[in-house]
């Protein structure tokens, strides 16, 4: 009879055993970010007290799952026992909506224990289990079954600039309906609530634009666990392609989206890779339209430049970069925003 016990990674010997076990099963990425996010790890031990399975929880995500089937009562029994324990533990914390990121080869195993695939690519897959799920999310978004030209835009809008406004305007001109998804992530200067509100205000005159919170499904792809990807260079490709596949396999078909609009990316290497992945995965089913970025004078309008201007308090240049609605918010909250920056809020990145 196999038994489940806590596996404490803070203990050097336990951690070494755990790593050796995972590495023998093809998981070799133990970078700081992946390991530090783990909330708890369990081990499955056989009668000889050997580790025969392990799995970890990080917030609502199950990861670092590996099982050895040698000596098991039935193939898959240990896997089911582990996942069962992990889902129950998450449930006990009140987390009933759970995600798994894994190699495409294990999608079937997770489907057998009630997970559903949200996106699958060559390099990886994302699955979810529990409620509310993707169906509930898509159900609450307004739909326009008679519209023929429907576009989607996904933006961080940190904060909403004239560059974003230009992209939305063009899409609104070319299409009957534009879904504008605001990425759900509270890791930078403006919170999701603030970003959402500024996007709503900044597009309120465009009647065919529907602003939607990305919630659990349009998130920052950087947050996708990559513990099973060996090669560092492949991580960004895996993350961006997976993000694109969720859009293609779940979001676009349900809302009838036929085109996705992007701004060209002369500044950020990562975002450039993202744009390439979107083109690779979405085309030809979904047209990818890349618009040249809006400029003011010779300066490309970008949210990261806007955040630098907030840091130094250059309100007159800000007025040229952001719409009046965003400018009012910044002026009213300049001290708060600057305080967040001085407290160490990261304003670099995208």
């Amino acid at each position, binding site marked *: 009879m196999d038994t489940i016990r806590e596996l404490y990674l803070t203990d050097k010997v336990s951690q070494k055993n755990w790593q050796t076990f995972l590495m023998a099963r093809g998981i070799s990425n133990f970078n700081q970010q992946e390991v530090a996010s783990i909330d708890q790890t369990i081990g499955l031990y056989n009668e000889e007290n050997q580790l025969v399975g392990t799995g970890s929880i990080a917030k609502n995500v199950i990861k670092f799952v590996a099982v050895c089937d040698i000596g098991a009562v039935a193939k898959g029994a240990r896997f*089911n026992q582990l996942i069962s324990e992990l*889902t129950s533990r998450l449930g006990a914390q009140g987390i009933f909506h759970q995600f798994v990121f894994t190699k495409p080869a294990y999608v079937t195993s997770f489907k*057998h224990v*009630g997970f559903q695939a949200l996106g699958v690519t060559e390099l990886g897959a994302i699955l979810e289990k529990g409620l*509310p799920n993707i169906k509930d999310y898509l159900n609450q978004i307004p739909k326009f079954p008679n519209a023929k030209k429907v576009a989607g835009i996904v933006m961080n809008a940190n904060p909403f600039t004239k560059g974003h406004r230009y992209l939305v305007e063009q899409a609104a001109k070319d299409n009957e309906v534009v879904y504008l998804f605001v990425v759900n992530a509270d890791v930078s200067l403006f919170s999701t609530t603030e970003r959402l509100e500024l996007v709503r205000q900044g597009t309120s005159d465009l009647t065919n634009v529907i602003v939607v919170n990305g919630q659990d499904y349009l998130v920052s792809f950087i947050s996708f666990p990559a513990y099973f990807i060996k090669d560092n260079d492949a991580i960004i490709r895996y993350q961006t392609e997976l993000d694109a596949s969720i859009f293609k396999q779940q979001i676009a078909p349900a809302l009838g989206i036929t085109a996705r609009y992007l701004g060209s990316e002369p500044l950020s290497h990562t975002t450039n890779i993202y744009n390439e992945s979107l083109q690779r995965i979405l085309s030809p089913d979904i047209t990818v339209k890349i618009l040249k970025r809006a400029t003011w004078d010779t300066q490309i309008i970008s949210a990261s430049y806007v955040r630098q201007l907030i840091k130094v308090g250059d309100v007159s240049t800000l007025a040229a970069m952001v719409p009046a609605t965003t400018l009012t918010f910044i002026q009213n909250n300049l001290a708060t925003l600057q305080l967040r920056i001085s407290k160490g809020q990261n304003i670099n990145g995208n």
Partner: protein
Amino acid sequence: MEIKKMAMAGTLESSDIQIMLSAGTNGYEFELESDVAKQFGDQIKATITSVLQAYAIDNAKISVVDKGALDLVIKARAVTAVQRALEIVDTPNWEVL
């Protein structure tokens, strides 16, 4: 009766069943994953439905992962999930049981 909070009962191990309940607005909405869904899917749903009705629950989303559970196991897991969802674990409804 209304479901007060999301609740889960059961495991994913062989011969067991995991039942997750959450508030709904549109009768009973089932999602069932089972290797024997074709043969016993309707029977599994009927067993859970009878428990929900016994507790006078009108609306619920029910997510089920069956691993070949027998009827009495399904009933037991359903009762536990319902009592957790209604927050009446300490005061079970003996008449229903």
